[in-house]
């Protein structure tokens, strides 16, 4: 049964074509940009959730191809709710006749100053991406650390050893196109790893002005209680920014 399913997925994927997947500079693409060049991104974000209400956030990201087929991403975010987030991602990739396999090791740290605590997440995941689809699955562990207690007190830490991590993103254009729109479903984004039963819905768009500049606009929504079968809106994020590729 599993073999037939995999074969079916492969047959469906083949017509999508590997040719277009190779970018102009010869590298493979992650979300549409050649990955073999350094880039920096900046974004301004408006966010609302029912707990902290309205927020204005600033995002900075750097993409560094360390060697061929190994990339390193670094990210930082400041939220006006007095929360700082930093993340690093190491991403080795393997080129396939159709698309690319990738693995991600991600460390994410959130300093929730307003609540005097930190949230640390460590994730391992694997994925497969090609022109129109990117799928990623893995697991992550979380430790919440309250700042007001000694390291040896039993109530300083709260550990959640295993959570499923998933991301599915579908694109309307091939990756090498100079614009694209995607929809996605995931329990992680660049700034948070939610519990597995707390999915987020993503809508993203980008436009490459030239070989160096890109603008992007993303919207995201988090609902709560979905697997209670009592779903309600919880949070929305709207971010606009640009990327410069060196």
């Amino acid at each position, binding site marked *: 049964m599993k073999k037939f399913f995999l074969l079916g997925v492969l047959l469906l994927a083949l017509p999508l074509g590997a040719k277009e997947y190779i970018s102009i500079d010869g590298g493979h693409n992650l979300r549409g940009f050649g990955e073999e060049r350094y880039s920096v991104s900046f974004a301004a974000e408006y966010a609302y959730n*029912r707990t902290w209400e309205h927020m204005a956030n600033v995002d900075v990201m750097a993409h560094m191809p360390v060697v061929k087929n190994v990339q390193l991403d670094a990210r930082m975010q400041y939220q006006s709710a007095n929360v700082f987030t930093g993340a690093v991602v190491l991403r080795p990739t393997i080129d396939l006749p159709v698309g690319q396999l990738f693995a991600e090791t991600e460390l994410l740290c959130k300093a929730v100053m307003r609540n005097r605590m930190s949230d640390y997440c460590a994730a391992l995941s694997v994925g497969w991406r090609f022109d129109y689809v990117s799928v990623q699955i893995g697991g992550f562990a979380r430790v919440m650390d309250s700042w007001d207690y000694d390291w040896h007190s039993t*109530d300083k*830490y709260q550990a959640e050893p295993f959570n499923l991590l998933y991301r599915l993103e579908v694109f309307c254009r091939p990756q090498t196109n100079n614009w694209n729109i995607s929809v996605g479903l995931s329990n992680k984004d660049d700034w948070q790893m939610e519990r597995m039963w707390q999915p987020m819905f993503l809508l993203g768009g980008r436009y490459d002005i030239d070989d160096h500049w890109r603008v992007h606009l993303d919207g995201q929504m988090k609902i*709560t*209680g979905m697997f*209670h*079968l*009592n*779903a*309600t809106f919880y949070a929305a994020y709207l971010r606009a920014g640009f990327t410069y590729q060196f």
Partner: protein
Amino acid sequence: MALLGLACVACNPNYDMIGMINGTSPEIAQRFKESRHFSDSVGVVHLQMPKNYRIFVCTDSHIDSTHYGLAKFIHLYKADTMPHMCLYLGDLINAQGYFPHADSILHLEGVMTNRKDTIFMTCGNHDIYFNQWHNWQKYYGSSTYWFDTRNGKDLLDLYICLDTSEGTLGTDQMRWLKELLAQKKGAGYRHMIVFSHTHLFKQDNSQGHTSNLSLEETYELTSVLTEAGVKFYICGHDHSREVTDYGKVHYITVDSSTDAEPDPYYMVMDMGEQVNYQFISLLPIK
């Protein structure tokens, strides 16, 4: 297989599948407003208790065609000789139409009109499936309220009930909680206890798909409880016992008492200067 599983769940009349997209009962802001209106109209309950008394805690009975676990719990509760009261943490029923059955077991009718009952309820996600919030409200009035126990004029313990049946406290309820705790922090209570349906942490995945509060809300609520000096946060929902400490607050998830559970439990807390608690099996259930 996953699609087949989803199809089976979708065909189960006990699951409100529309609620997976958008909850069918009024959302938390409206429920909070109606709960506060009810609580304000009946006033705050101050229970007279001796300094040492007992709390019975039960949750997730999921009453449908059978009620053995809940009936046994009520029998044990009524038969206890110590001064006592009861907290019920939600998911009293499993799906639509079972409130009359469940309530006949609780025997609460009549006492809810003046809130002089000694069973304090909160609602769970199953209680408000299929737009049943107003049915729940007809029986139990309010899902967000506070009460305290007193010995003569001496304050004993403060209890705060929150509605988390939708997986969020919402803006207004969180604000109300913060204001209430700020007001009560220095009032001289011996212990402060918050109880609700949904658990905050997910140390394991013991019950599969029970979702909890979102991350931001977990950060905020744990911080608020710690700052105010709350001793216990008691909840159900996960069906599996979990006892953990974080920031001086003791978080207890109580086992389910449903008939479908192979090993159902309830919890007894002995309140005094110290608090002792134990989990007691409901087996044999009949």
